């Protein structure tokens, strides 16, 4: 008897099934790794206390501080009272329940989605959850990684399982070779522009094809990170030698016989040849340009060579109205060339694009140059480890000589929860993941870009690609 061909997502689901739900009840899945941060965990810990419950598997749980933390003067107490209270609550809760924590000032502190992979805790074949929608990042290793709510955080703490309704599968096929100056960020922005911010709803996306296989782990993480911006439950890339090489020797990577057993299993983690996806999307990597957003959701993006679209030419009335509202908020006229848009701030950071490779790529562009007048550039490493490594490589010097600010690790200007915010009306080229109204500060305007576009923009002062720079 031959078994039914399966997609990678289905294999991962089946391998974590504890109880199959009957009569419409959800399946119960085992959770291999639970990441925690200060914003979505306080009520979960309080719930445990109220019910007199303990954490089932402290050894599968790890916490760090990222959303509320400042990126300057980190030795001082956090100034904003609610931020300080949330961080202190996490410290108290992890101490009380015996959970490992990497606090501000610790060399392993950083954005939760950067910390997991760098410690080697994130690996193929796992289920990974965190009370944060960008948990999809970890799918880059061939794991099923999902963002969850506070009640679910409590559920996982207490049971190490989660009741989940089945999903549909979508293949995102990206074939071809990216041109110089085009990167993973441009792929995912193009994908979201193509399928829209709701196109992934109910699906687990699997990114496939030669352009994906050619990407580094950092690039794959950038793509999986933004799966949620297409509305997807999760995003995945099948593990391969690039994955194994990235993991080997990291602090928590398997060793010896465990490593061999793991790799043997990991090599089975790919979609069977005859498996059928519920939906398929095709992207041509050969012709892809650098991609930037013009509007107020991540699906409102165009090629950097293009212009701000004219809402009058959008057929769908809802989309047209959304575009009109977006252009008003963004203070942009239809037909404006994207490259003519001047920004005040360039933000290089976030769980999307603040890993060492992102910093290297941007540093390569700004090296030996000076930032444009009136531009403020903030470089915020994704973790303290990334910061230390960058300093070892001299990247901090490159950025400082260019005129950029070199900060400590955290979520920073990706979201308005900490001191790093834009002023009303300010415009940023940002390597983060959300260009929602007010996301980077009340009244702030965001253009999502790749690290190299961010760097080139900081040189010229207007949205630019590296090819726009004089040699």
């Amino acid at each position, binding site marked *: 008897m031959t078994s039914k061909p399966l997609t990678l997502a289905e294999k991962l689901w089946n391998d974590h099934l*504890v*109880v199959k739900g009957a009569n419409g009840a959800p399946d*119960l899945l*085992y959770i*291999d*790794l639970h990441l925690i941060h200060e914003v979505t965990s*306080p*009520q979960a810990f*309080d*719930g445990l206390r*109220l*019910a007199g*419950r303990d954490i089932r598997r*402290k*050894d*599968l*749980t*790890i916490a760090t501080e990222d959303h509320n933390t400042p990126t300057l003067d980190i030795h001082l107490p956090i100034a904003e009272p*609610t931020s300080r*209270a*949330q961080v202190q*609550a996490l410290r108290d809760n992890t101490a009380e329940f015996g959970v*490992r924590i990497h606090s501000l000032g*610790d*060399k*392993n502190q950083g954005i939760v989605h950067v910390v997991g992979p760098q*410690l*080697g*805790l994130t*690996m193929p074949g*796992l289920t990974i959850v965190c009370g944060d929608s960008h948990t999809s990042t970890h799918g880059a290793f061939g794991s099923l990684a999902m963002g969850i709510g*506070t*009640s679910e955080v*409590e*559920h996982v703490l*207490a*049971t*190490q*399982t989660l*009741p989940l309704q089945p999903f549909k599968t979508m293949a995102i096929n990206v074939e071809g070779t990216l041109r110089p100056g085009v990167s993973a960020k441009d792929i995912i922005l193009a994908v979201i522009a193509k399928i829209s911010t709701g196109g992934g709803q109910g699906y687990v996306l699997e990114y496939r094809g030669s352009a994906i296989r050619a990407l580094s782990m950092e690039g794959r993480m950038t793509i999986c990170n933004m799966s949620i911006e297409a509305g997807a439950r999760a995003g995945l890339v099948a593990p391969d030698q690039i994955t194994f090489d990235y993991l080997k020797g*990291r*602090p*928590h990577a*398997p060793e010896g016989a*465990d*490593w061999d*057993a*793991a790799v043997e*299993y990991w090599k089975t983690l790919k979609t069977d040849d005859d498996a059928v996806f519920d939906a398929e999307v095709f992207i041509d990597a050969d012709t892809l340009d650098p991609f930037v957003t013009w509007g107020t959701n991540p699906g409102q993006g165009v090629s950097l060579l293009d212009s701000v679209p004219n809402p009058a030419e959008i057929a769908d009335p809802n989309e047209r109205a959304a575009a009109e509202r977006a252009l008003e908020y963004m203070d942009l006229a239809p037909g404006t060339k994207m490259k003519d848009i001047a920004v005040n701030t360039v933000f290089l950071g976030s769980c999307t694009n603040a890993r060492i490779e992102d910093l290297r790529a941007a540093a390569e562009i700004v090296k030996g140059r000076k930032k444009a007048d009136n531009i403020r550039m903030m470089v915020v490493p994704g973790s303290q480890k990334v910061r230390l490594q960058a300093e070892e490589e001299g990247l901090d010097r490159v950025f400082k000589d260019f005129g950029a600010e070199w900060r400590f690790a955290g979520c920073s200007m990706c979201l308005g929860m900490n001191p790093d915010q834009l002023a009303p009306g300010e415009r940023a080229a940002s390597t983060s993941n959300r260009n929602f109204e007010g996301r980077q500060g009340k009244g702030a305007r965001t253009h999502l870009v790749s690290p190299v576009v961010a760097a080139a923009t900081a040189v010229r002062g207007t949205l630019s690609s590296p090819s726009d720079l004089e040699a």
Partner: protein
Amino acid sequence: MEKISTFNGVAAPLKRGNVDTDQIIPAVYLKRITKTGFEDGLFANWRQQDPDFVLNQEIYKNSKILIAGPDFGTGSSREHAVWALRDFGFQAVFSSKFADIFRGNSGKQGLITGVITEDETERIWAVLEANPGIEAYVDLPNQTLRVGEITARFEIDEYTKWRLMEGLDDIGITLQNEAAIAAYEAKRESWKPRTLPAKGV
């Protein structure tokens, strides 16, 4: 959660329809880091602005049962709305119509949401106004609400009723699968990562 069977308590009339969760608890109360202590946020705007609001009256300070108008709990999905009702002391809310998300959240937190008819709601309000502070009697197994001479049968879905009667929250239900979870853990591969003991520190 505690098992619920029958109980009695003061019933308060909330003679308003379309009570959305922003009214049940305004957004300013959402910054808390605890899951309890939301009672001061319950209907905060109404309690602060209207001295005659029902819950400002001394006889209703210890209410356990709320008799509300139609479309209760619409709007934002905030779990805090249920926490606020629960923390104030409410064990049951009755209305002719509830918003889905609010009703789902209530079931998870041990708050009964019973559907009675609009006619029954009106008649119960009349009894409460004639006898302020009167106690009502709730019988979950038989799905009845008794106020004075009126006995109303309320609707609640079987799964939620079962969970409330058994005192099971989602976690409690999952823990009924303890043997299956333990069996799964016993066969988990040894290469899978553990955060403890900490490495790389």
